[in-house]
C-alpha cells in the first residue's frame, strides 16, 4: 500500500510538469499532498507513532486543501494569468524527465545503504526533489514557481517521514509554520508583481 501511494506521489508530480493550466496544476499539487498525508497516516499506523499521524492529518488539512484553495482564491482576486506554458518544450521534457529519474535513482544508491528503512523511498524522494526543481525552472510565471517550491517541501517531508522513521514533531510543526509564513510572503510578492505588471 505504501508503494502505491509513493507511486501516486511521483505520478502526480510528473503530470504537473506537463500541465499548462494553473487550476489543473493546483489540483495535481493537492493530489500530491493528499498522497503524502495518507502515506504519513499509514506509516504512523505501522510504527504506532502518534506524532506522525498528527502531522499526516495536518498535511491533509493544510497542504491538500488549505493551500491550493488559498492560492486559487488569490489567483482569482489578482486575476493572474491562468495559462502557464512551460519554457522547456514538452518534446525535451520527455527526454529530460527519464534522464533525471535514472540519474537520481543511481545517485541514491550509495546513500540507501545507510538508511534503516526501505531504501526505495529515499531514491523516490530525491528524484521528486529534482523534478520539483525542474518545475520551478521551466516556468517564468510566479504561480507555478510557488507550486514548485511547495512540491519541493513535499519531497523533503517524504524524505523525512520515510528515511528517518519520522522526524521529531517539533521540527515538522516548525516546517508547517515556515510554510504558512512563506504563503503570506508569497501573497505580498504576487500583489507586487501585479502592480509592476499593471504599471508596465
Amino acid at each position, binding site marked *: 500500500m505504501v*508503494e502505491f501511494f509513493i*507511486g501516486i506521489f511521483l*505520478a502526480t508530480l510528473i503530470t504537473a510538469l506537463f500541465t499548462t493550466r494553473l487550476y489543473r496544476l493546483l489540483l495535481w499539487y493537492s493530489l500530491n499532498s493528499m498522497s503524502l498525508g495518507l502515506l504519513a497516516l499509514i506509516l504512523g499506523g505501522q510504527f504506532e507513532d502518534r506524532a506522525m499521524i498528527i502531522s499526516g492529518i495536518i498535511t491533509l488539512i493544510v497542504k491538500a486543501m488549505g493551500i491550493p484553495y488559498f492560492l486559487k482564491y488569490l489567483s482569482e482576486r489578482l486575476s493572474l494569468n491562468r495559462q502557464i506554458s512551460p519554457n522547456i518544450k514538452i518534446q525535451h521534457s*520527455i527526454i529530460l524527465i*527519464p534522464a533525471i529519474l535514472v540519474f537520481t535513482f543511481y545517485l541514491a544508491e550509495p546513500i540507501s545503504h545507510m538508511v534503516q528503512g526501505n*531504501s526505495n523511498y529515499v531514491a523516490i524522494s530525491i528524484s521528486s526533489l529534482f523534478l520539483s526543481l525542474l518545475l520551478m525552472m521551466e516556468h517564468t510565471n510566479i504561480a507555478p514557481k510557488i507550486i514548485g517550491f511547495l512540491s519541493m517541501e513535499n519531497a523533503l517531508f517524504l524524505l523525512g517521514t520515510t528515511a528517518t522513521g519520522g522526524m521529531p514533531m517539533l521540527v515538522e510543526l516548525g516546517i508547517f509554520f515556515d510554510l504558512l509564513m512563506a504563503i503570506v510572503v508569497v501573497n505580498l510578492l504576487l500583489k507586487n508583481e501585479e502592480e509592476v505588471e499593471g504599471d508596465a
Partner: protein
Amino acid sequence: MIFYITTIIIMVLIAPILLSFIKMVKMYLLFKRPISILQGYKDVSKLITKETIISKEASDITRIAPFLVLSPLLLVLFFLPPATSGAFYVSFVDAFTITGLITLSTFFLMLLGLDSASSFGGLGSSREAFISALVEPAMILTIFSVSMMANNLGVAQAGVNLAKEFPSNHMASFLFAGISFFILLIAENGRIPVDNPETHLELTMVHEAMILDITGFYLALIESAASIKFVIFASLFASLFMPFGLDLNPWLSILLFVAKLFFVALLVALIEVNTAKLRLFKVPNLLGIAIVFAFLSLITFYVLGA
C-alpha cells in the same frame, strides 16, 4: 472449454453495448435524455438492411478490406487472458502477436480510407498512421514491464500469473504501467482527448474520415470492429491491471469480469466529459506522457525493485 467459449461469446455480444453505455453516461452527465443501452444493436441492424453503395473509383480493396479489418480483431479475442481461473487459455501467444494483429486491422482500415480516392480518406489515414506510430513505443515498454512483473511474456499466462500472485511489492511500477496503458487505450480507440468519434468536422475527425464513403453492410462490419477493439483493450486492462476475483465460482467471476469492463467504460466516459479534444499536433505530448510513465515503470522495477 465451456467457460472459454462463453467468455468470447459474451465479449462479442457486449461490445456494442459498452460503446452505447459510454454514450449514455456522457449524455446523462450533460443533462441530455440518454440513448438506450441497446443503441449499438439498433444501429447495426439498421445498417445491415440498407443498400451497400461502392464508389466508382474504388478498387477491390473496398470489397475485401472490411472483412480484413474485423477478422484479426476476432482472432485476438481467442488469445486474451481468461476471466476465471479454471478456464482454458492460450498461453504461448505473446504481446507482439496481439499488437501485430491489431495493427494489421488498422493497416486495412487505412487502405480502405485511401482506396475511396476522396480527400477525406487520405487525411484520416495519414492521421491514423501518425497516432498508431506514436502508440507503438509506449505499448511495447508497458507490456514489457507488465511481463517482468508477471514473469512471463505470454499475455494470457501473464494475466493468470498476476491473478495468482499479485505483485504487491511492485505497486509503484504497476501503477505507472496502468496509467500508461490507460492513455494507450484512449489513443488506440480514438476516444476524446485524441479523436472525437461523434463529429464529422474535418478538422477533428480521424476514424470517421476513413469510413466516410463506406455504407450499408460494410459500415456495419467496420462499426462492430471498432466496438470489438474497445472490448479487447478493456479486457486487457481488466485482466492485467485489475487481477482479482478469478477464484470465485466460475459464473460469478465471469459476471465480475463483465462488471470490470463496464467500470473501464465508465472511466473512459468520465474522462471524455471532463476533457476537451486535443489539437492533432498536441497528441504527441499526451503519448509522450504515456512513454514517460512506461519508461518510469520499467526503471522503477529494475533499479529500485519497487
